[in-house]
């Protein structure tokens, strides 16, 4: 009965309602992919505007004030609203399947996490239409942001606070899922690397987001409720914001890059047809990077005057991270070495990721040397460095992951031909844009500068950089065409479309049944599905007889809880201007949030069971190929 309800064809409104209320990790993954992709495009348009403005000297394509808003929103959007949610999309889509779970540990909280992120991001971006976006840089240093006029920085503080709650919930959810819901036989040291990196990244979220939350709260009270945490005139200390921001900010970099490493660690063995070289050292390196990531934040603040001892300690700690990262790089190379390689689109991204990321890593070690950093600080060298790490690492992983996991998420295969064109354009454009920026920085071009003068040797470099950005944009447009084409044609490719899938996620039928596994699989080693295939089997060995499966009900409360905070944020922000409606709006928003929470707490919702007979029926009808 319940199975029938899920296989029925829905109308458009029905589909929308299904996605508004879904608690299924596979559907939440699609929501994250769409919302993250949308914000990625918005951030990309902002990037293009930056490069147009800087293409020629003395340009006035945008005004200086608008330029500040654009760079702030580009950075904030790309980090918080594009890269992280897109990684969450893959974590949601892949991780529960990889460990042989039927869903995440808290499906309701999973949905709540998504909607909080979405409404936080929406709130932040509405600033464009409501009197100006934040303009104090994505780091929003207190001495600058407290002086920023209008409501821009308020949008930043409240928007990030709301979306940060969502991220924190997502991270905790993944942790509990990985600790408690692994299939029989799936020990920690048999978990695929993407699951491992999800685990460590989630732990980093757990420890890194609270400092950000605290910092944002202090900023919120300083700006909206008259406190003076960062206000030097009132006895505060402006440097504290920098510490809080970077205690969060440096682990944040690893929250982004570790899952990217995980995606590549899945792609290399698949297309080299070899098991991952040095699996246990990869796990060790992942954990070590996560650990060291908390002891290095002050390398962003060498020039604030921490003193030689603090600078030296943080410099050495930072350089130490190159060791586990190097272990990973060598392991990937050894994985490809002697393999039977096929250069599919994901593999192209993976192979080109190695040199790109190493370049970003090397400039990172250069900046870790505190005396040298006094030269690099706030120059375009820094801009080049972190774009090499984030675009050369994370964005390449996201594009690779899209191609690699598309069949898993949608049952269709993106075109390899268009994919290769995207790859060529994006990869060329990326190096064209950012390589030259190292030299622009060394020649003295400051970061976040609105325009530059002719005759200082900066014209050619900036023009090349802008041309490169156009290549990247072209690559993304072709990728979008690829997506639309593929989904319109809708050719279902079935199970294990890459033929060489190694891990559990490729063992389930395509499209995946909503309960994932009819019977939980028995895991007999690393690369569980590959082991079965090598023994001539086509299915996993089940670890349990067919029985009733307990499933959670859909819920609308996550949407309402998040909507309430979204409304309340407007009230909190406009009460500063003594608007008479502001306080009532704040109260109404909070009432919606707490009302939905109360409703959720009082109403008993035990979910439902899929009965054994229905599962057996499913198999007879060929529902599982």
């Amino acid at each position, binding site marked *: 009965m319940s199975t029938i309800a899920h296989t029925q064809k829905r109308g458009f409104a029905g589909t929308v309602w299904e996605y508004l209320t879904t608690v299924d990790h596979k559907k939440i993954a699609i929501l994250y992919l769409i919302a993250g992709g949308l914000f990625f495009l918005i951030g990309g348009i902002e990037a293009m505007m930056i490069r147009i403005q800087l293409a020629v000297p003395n340009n006035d394509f945008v005004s200086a004030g608008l330029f500040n808003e654009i760079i702030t929103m580009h950075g904030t959007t790309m980090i918080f609203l594009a890269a992280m949610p897109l990684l969450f999309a893959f974590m949601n889509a892949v991780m529960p399947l990889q460990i042989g779970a039927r869903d995440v540990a808290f499906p309701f909280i999973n949905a709540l996490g998504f909607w909080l992120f979405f409404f936080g991001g929406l709130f932040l971006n509405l600033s464009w239409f409501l009197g100006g976006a934040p303009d104090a840089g994505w780091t929003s240093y207190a001495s600058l942001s407290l002086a920023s006029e209008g409501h821009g920085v308020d949008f930043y503080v409240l928007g990030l606070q709301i979306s940060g709650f969502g991220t924190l919930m997502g991270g905790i959810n993944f942790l509990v899922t990985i600790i408690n819901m692994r299939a029989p036989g799936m020990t920690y040291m048999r978990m695929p690397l993407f699951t491992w990196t999800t685990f460590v990244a989630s732990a980093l979220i757990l420890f890194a987001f609270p400092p950000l939350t605290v910092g944002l709260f202090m900023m919120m009270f300083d700006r909206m409720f008259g406190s003076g945490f960062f206000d030097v005139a009132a006895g505060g200390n402006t440097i504290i914001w920098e510490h809080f921001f970077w205690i969060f900010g440096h682990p944040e970099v690893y929250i982004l890059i570790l899952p990217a490493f995980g995606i590549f660690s899945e792609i290399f063995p698949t297309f080299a047809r070899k098991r991952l070289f040095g699996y246990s050292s990869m796990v060790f390196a992942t954990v070590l990077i996560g650990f060291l990531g908390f*002891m290095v934040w002050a390398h962003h603040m060498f020039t604030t005057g921490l003193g030689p001892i603090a600078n030296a300690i943080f410099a050495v700690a930072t350089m130490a991270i190159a060791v586990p990262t190097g272990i990973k790089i060598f392991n990937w190379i050894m994985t490809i070495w002697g393999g039977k390689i096929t250069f599919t689109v994901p593999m192209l991204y993976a192979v080109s990721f190695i040199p790109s990321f190493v370049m970003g890593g090397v400039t990172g070690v250069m900046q870790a040397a505190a005396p040298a950093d006094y030269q690099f600080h706030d120059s375009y060298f820094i801009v080049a460095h972190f774009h090499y790490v984030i675009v050369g690492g994370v964005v390449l992983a996201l594009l690779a992951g899209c191609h690699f996991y598309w069949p898993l998420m949608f049952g269709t295969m993106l075109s390899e031909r268009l994919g290769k064109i995207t790859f060529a354009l994006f990869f060329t454009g990326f190096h064209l844009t950012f390589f030259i920026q190292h030299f622009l920085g060394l020649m003295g071009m400051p970061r976040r500068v609105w325009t530059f003068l002719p005759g200082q040797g900066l014209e050619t470099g900036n023009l090349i950089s802008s041309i490169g950005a156009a290549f990247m944009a072209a690559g993304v447009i072709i990728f979008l065409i690829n997506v639309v084409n593929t989904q319109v044609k809708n050719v279902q490719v079935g199970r294990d479309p890459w033929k060489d899938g190694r891990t559990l996620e490729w063992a389930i039928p395509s499209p995946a049944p909503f309960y994932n596994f009819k019977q939980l699989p028995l895991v007999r080693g690393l690369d569980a599905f590959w082991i079965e295939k090598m023994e001539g089997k086509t299915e996993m060995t089940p670890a349990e007889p067919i029985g009733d499966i307990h499933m959670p009900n859909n819920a609308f409360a996550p949407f309402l809880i998040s909507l309430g905070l979204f409304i309340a944020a407007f009230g909190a922000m406009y009460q500063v201007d003594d608007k008479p409606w502001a306080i009532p709006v704040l109260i109404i928003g909070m009432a919606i949030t707490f009302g939905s929470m109360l409703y959720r707490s009082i109403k008993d919702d035990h979910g439902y069971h899929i009965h054994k007979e229905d599962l057996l029926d499913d198999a007879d009808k060929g529902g599982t190929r």
Partner: protein
Amino acid sequence: MANLQSNSGDPKVNYEYRRKKSADEMRMQVITFTLMIFFTVLAFAAVGAGFSKWFIIPFVLLLACVQVAFQLYYFMHMSHKGHEAPQLFMWSGIFVAFLTILTFLTIIWW
């Protein structure tokens, strides 16, 4: 689940064994409880005796840390099997918090 405790009332587990286990645990709890009261008395005594504050503050803080550990491991049963993950995360969290406070004390408010 793995964190079912040995005294969870599973009828298959030998009654005598469970009885002995509970008695052992009870003894440990009484011992730690006595120690905790003793530590509290020590803390008050140290302040009352009027030692230098460079002795009293670290001493009281140390006693407090030991008491927290007792509380967690004996009264909240963290010493039992199946608490490895919570332990790992608690200690990592404490470590990160400690590191943060240490740097704040040394390089911001020096």
